[in-house]
C-alpha cells in the first residue's frame, strides 16, 4: 500500500455520473483489482439500463436472451408487482457469466454506488466466474450467449412449425424436470451454438435428401422403431432424467428432443451458480469492500461518497437473528463476506485458537493467496467445511437444531461452544450441499422391449418426502415426454425398503 502523502485527486464530486466518470472509475478500480488483488477477469462489457429493463432481465432468469415461455411472463408480473408496491428494491446490478462478462448497471445509481457496483460485479463476480473450478469445468462462458441465441431462434422456429401450444407442452414438461436434468458427477460436453446449428442443419438436410413421399403411405406401425439391441441391453440407470428422456424417449420427435436438450443445457449452466451462491456473493462483496477502501485510502473517493458506500455495504451484509421478524434465512453476502474477512484476519492476526484450528494458514500473512486459492477451488459446502472458524461461529451466534416431523419440539444439538463448533460447522456445510435440498430421483430402468414403462427411484433421505401435488403433476409432465407409463418408487435411504409407489396410471385415474 502506498504512503499517505501519495494522495490522488478524487475521481468525481457530487452524486451524478456520466460516461467519463464511469470510465475513470472503471480504470482506477481495474488497476487496483489487477495490481493489488491479482484478480483475473474476463473482458467487461458494462451496460447501463433502466428499471424496466432490469425487470425484464430478472424475468428471463437474468439472461439477455431467452426463448419465450409463459413462466417468464409470470415472473415478470410477480416482480413488477413487488417492485411497484415498493416491497422490493431492484438490484443495483446484474452480472452474467459470459465472456465478455456482461454487467448491467442501473441508471438510477449514484456515482458512488456505481463505483461499488462496478467493483462488485465487474471484478468480484467476474473473477469468480473465470477462476472457480466449478464454472471452469461445467460451464462455457464464451459459448453461452451464442448458444442462447441459437436456443431462442430454434424455439421460435419450432413454434412457427408446430404451433405454440405443442412447443409449450414440451417446455412445461422439461422445465418441471430441470432439477433432475443435471449431471452431478460427470462433466458435460462443451456447448457450441455453431455445432448445434450444424447438427440441426445436417439432420434437416438429410431428411430432405432422403425424402420420399412413399413412406407416408405406409401403414404407421412400420414406423415404430424397435429398440436396437444396444439400447435394450445397456444399463439404463441414469441420474439425469432429462438426458435419459432425450436419448431414449420412444415418442419424442427430433425437434422435441432438441428442446429437451436446450432446457437440459440451461439447467446444467445454472448448476454451479447454485452451488457457489454464498462464495460468489462473498467474493464479490469482499472485493468491493477491499477495493473501495483502498480507493478511499488513496484519495480517489471523497469522504461523503465513502460513507454512502459503507452504508450500502452494511445493508447488503445485514444479518438479522433467527427470531427477528426480518429474518429470511442466512444472508449469503453476510456469511461469505464474514468468512473471507475472517480468513484475512487468521492469516494476519491469528489467536491461539486459530493456530489450533488452521495451522496451515494462521499467521502466514499471505491472505490474498489463500483467498484466491479458495475462490478457485471451493464450492459453498467445502468452503464452510474448510474455513468456518470458531470465532465466526461465536460472532454470528450460530446454533444447530434437529427438526424431526414426528416430534412436537425442535432440539438444539449444538451451540457456539467448544463442544459445538465442529457439529455446527458440519451441519452448516451440509445445509449448503445442494443434494440435501433436492430429492434424489434417478431413472432405474425402462423396459424398452416390453411395456416401455419408465421406472424412477426416489431415495428418501431422513424420511423427507415429496410434496404430493407437485410430485403428481411432475409425473404427468414426465409421462407426456415419455409417452408411456412412468412409475416412481420411493425407497428409504437407510433400510432400502419401498415406502411408496406412484404410477402415472394411478395419477391419471385420480385426476
Amino acid at each position, binding site marked *: 500500500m502506498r504512503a499517505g502523502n501519495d494522495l490522488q485527486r478524487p475521481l468525481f464530486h457530487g452524486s451524478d455520473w456520466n460516461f467519463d466518470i464511469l470510465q475513470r472509475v472503471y480504470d482506477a478500480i481495474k488497476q487496483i483489482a489487477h495490481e493489488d488483488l491479482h484478480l483475473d477477469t474476463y473482458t467487461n462489457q*458494462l*451496460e447501463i439500463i433502466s428499471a424496466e429493463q432490469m425487470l425484464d432481465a430478472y424475468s428471463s432468469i437474468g439472461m439477455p436472451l431467452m426463448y419465450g415461455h409463459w413462466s417468464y411472463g*409470470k415472473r*415478470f408480473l*410477480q416482480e413488477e408487482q413487488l417492485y411497484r408496491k415498493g416491497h422490493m428494491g431492484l438490484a443495483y446490478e446484474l452480472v452474467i457469466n459470459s465472456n465478455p462478462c456482461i454487467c448491467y448497471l442501473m441508471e438510477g445509481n449514484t456515482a458512488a454506488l456505481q463505483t461499488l457496483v462496478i467493483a462488485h460485479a465487474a471484478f468480484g463476480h467476474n473473477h469468480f466466474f473465470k477462476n472457480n473450478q466449478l464454472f471452469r469445468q461445467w460451464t462455457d462462458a464464451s459459448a453461452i450467449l451464442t448458444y442462447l441465441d441459437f436456443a431462442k431462434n430454434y424455439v421460435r422456429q419450432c413454434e412457427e412449425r408446430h404451433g405454440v401450444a405443442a412447443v409449450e407442452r414440451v417446455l412445461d414438461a422439461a422445465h418441471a424436470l430441470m432439477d433432475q436434468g443435471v449431471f452431478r458427477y460427470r462433466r458435460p460436453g462443451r456447448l457450441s451454438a455453431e455445432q448445434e446449428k450444424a447438427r440441426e442443419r445436417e439432420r434437416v438436410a438429410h431428411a430432405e435428401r432422403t425424402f420420399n413421399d412413399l413412406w407416408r403411405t405406409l401403414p404407421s406401425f412400420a414406423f415404430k422403431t424397435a429398440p436396437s439391441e444396444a439400447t435394450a441391453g445397456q444399463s439404463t440407470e441414469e441420474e439425469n432424467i432429462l438426458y435419459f428422456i432425450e436419448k431414449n424417449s420412444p415418442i419424442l420427435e427430433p425437434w422435441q428432443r432438441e428442446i429437451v436438450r436446450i432446457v437440459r443445457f440451461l439447467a446444467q449452466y445454472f448448476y454451479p451458480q447454485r452451488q457457489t451462491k454464498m462464495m460468489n456473493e462473498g467474493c464479490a462483496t469482499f472485493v468491493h469492500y477491499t477495493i473501495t477502501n483502498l480507493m478511499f485510502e488513496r484519495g480517489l473517493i471523497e469522504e461523503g461518497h465513502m460513507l454512502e458506500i459503507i452504508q450500502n455495504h452494511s445493508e447488503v451484509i445485514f444479518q438479522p437473528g433467527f427470531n427477528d421478524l426480518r429474518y429470511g434465512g442466512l444472508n449469503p453476502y453476510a456469511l461469505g463476506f464474514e468468512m473471507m474477512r475472517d480468513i484475512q484476519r487468521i492469516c494476519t492476526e491469528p489467536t491461539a485458537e486459530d493456530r489450533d484450528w488452521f495451522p496451515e494458514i494462521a499467521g502466514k500473512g499471505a491472505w490474498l493467496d489463500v483467498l484466491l486459492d479458495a475462490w478457485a477451488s471451493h464450492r459453498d459446502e467445502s468452503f464452510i467445511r474448510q474455513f468456518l472458524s470458531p470465532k465466526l461461529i461465536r460472532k454470528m451466534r450460530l446454533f444447530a437444531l434437529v427438526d424431526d416431523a414426528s416430534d*412436537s419440539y425442535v432440539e438444539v444439538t449444538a451451540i457456539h461452544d467448544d463442544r459445538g463448533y465442529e457439529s455446527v460447522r458440519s451441519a452448516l456445510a451440509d445445509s449448503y450441499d445442494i443434494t440435501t435440498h433436492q430429492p434424489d430421483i434417478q431413472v432405474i430402468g425402462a423396459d424398452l422391449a416390453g411395456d416401455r414403462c419408465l421406472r424412477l427411484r426416489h431415495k428418501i433421505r431422513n*424420511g*423427507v*418426502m415429496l410434496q404430493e401435488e407437485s410430485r403428481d403433476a*411432475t409425473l404427468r409432465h414426465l409421462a407426456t415426454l415419455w409417452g408411456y407409463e412412468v412409475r416412481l418408487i420411493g425407497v428409504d435411504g437407510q433400510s432400502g425398503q419401498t415406502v411408496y409407489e406412484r404410477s402415472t396410471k394411478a395419477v391419471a385415474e385420480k385426476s
Partner: protein
Amino acid sequence: MSHFIDRRLNPKDKSLGNRQRFLRRAREELRQVFNKRLKSTPIADVDSDHAVTVSSSITGEPSFRHAAATGRRNIVLPGNTMYSAGDRIPKHGQVGGQMGRQAGDSAPDDDFQFVLNREEVLDLFFEGLELPDMVKLHLKEVLAFKSRRSGYTTTGTPSNINVRRTMRNSLGRRIALRRPSRDELDEISRQISELENHEQTPAIRLKLLKLQETLRRLTHRRKLVAYVDPLDIRYNRFEARPVPNTAAVMFCLMDVSGSMGEREKDLAKRFFVLLHLFLKRRYERTEIVFIRHTHEAKVVDEDTFFYSMQSGGTIVSSALDEMQRVIAEKYPVNEWNIYAAQASDGDNSPYDSNRCQEILEGGLLAKCQYFAYVEIIDARERDIFRSATNGTPLWNSYRSVSEKLPRLQMVRLAVPEDIYPVFRHLFAKHGSVGLG
C-alpha cells in the same frame, strides 16, 4: 479493455410477449374472477387497472420437491441468545413458526396475484363479443384512407428512399458504364509514383506519360459517371386505399320511472355502463344515443343518463316513439346499422304494452339490426319468472314479437352477478358463447 454501452434507449417491454403468453394461459380463469368481482365493485371501475389472483393449478410450475414437515432435518440458524445444547423448543409459537419457514424447502404453492392494466382487463372482458348482423357497410360521409406499400416509384420524398433498390440500380449502371473503381485508380497512382521515383529514362518517361493520361481519362470518367445518379433513385410507393367505415348507432333506452327502485336503476345502469364500455372499446365510430323515459321520453347526454334522478309515471312506448323520431331525423336506415338496448322493470301503463308491440312490429324493429330487451326483476321473483312464458304485460307483448322476429332478444336480470352472463349472452359472437 472495457465497454460501456448505454442500453437505456433500447426497446423496453422485452418480456411483453411472455406476459401475453401468460395471460393467454390464465384467460379462462381470469374471466371467472372478473365475473365474480362484478358483484362487488362499482361497475364503472371495470375501466381501470385490476389486481387479480389466479390459482396455482393453471400457473403452477411443479417439480419434484421436498414437502415441509416430513422427516428429519438439520438446521443452522444465526443469532442464538438463549439456547444451549439439549434444549427443546416447542414447535408452535414464534420460534417454531420461524423455523417452519426455514425448514420448508418448498415455498407453498400460493395463489398468484398480479395486476392487469386497463387495456388487458377490457380485452378480456369483451373477448368474443360483437354487435350482431353488422351488414350495412355503407361508407359514412368522410372516407378513411389507409396507406399501403405498393411497389416503387421514381419520385418521392427523401424519407421514402428505398436504399436497397437504389443501390442495386446504381451498381448496375456503374458496371454497364464501366465506371473505374477506386482500386483501379489507386493502382495506377501507385505505379505513377513508383515510376516518378525511378530514374527518368525516355522509355520510363513515355510510360509515365501514358499512365498519367490513363489516370486523367479514368478520373474524368469517374466524374462523368456518378456513383449514385438521380436516375438510380427509387422511392417506396404508397397507395392510399379507402377503408370501409361502418356506421352504427346504439340506442340505450332506460326506464327511470318511480316504479324503478334504487336497486333496479342500479342494475340497469350497470348493464348500460358495461354496454357503453364495450362500444367505446370495440367500435370507435359507433354513436350512442341515450334515451330515458318516465311517462315521456327524452334524449339526454351520457352524464344525465347515468347520474341524474327523475321520477314520474311509466309509458314505455314514449321511448320507442322518441327513438323512431331520432332515427327519422338523423340516422337514415339505409346507411346506418341500428341497435337498441332497453332496460325496464316490466311495469307499464295499461294498454301501453300493446302499443309498444304495435310500434315494434309496425316498423321500428324492421329498422333495427338487433334489439335487446333486459327486464330487471326482483331476486325473489326469479323462481316465479323462470319460464319465459310467464311475465309482466310488457314481457308478454315483447315475447310475442320476439317469436315472430328473433332479432328482438329478451333476458331477465335479477342480481348483479347476472349482468355479465346476460351481457355475454346478448352480444356473444354467434354460436360461440352461451348464457353462462
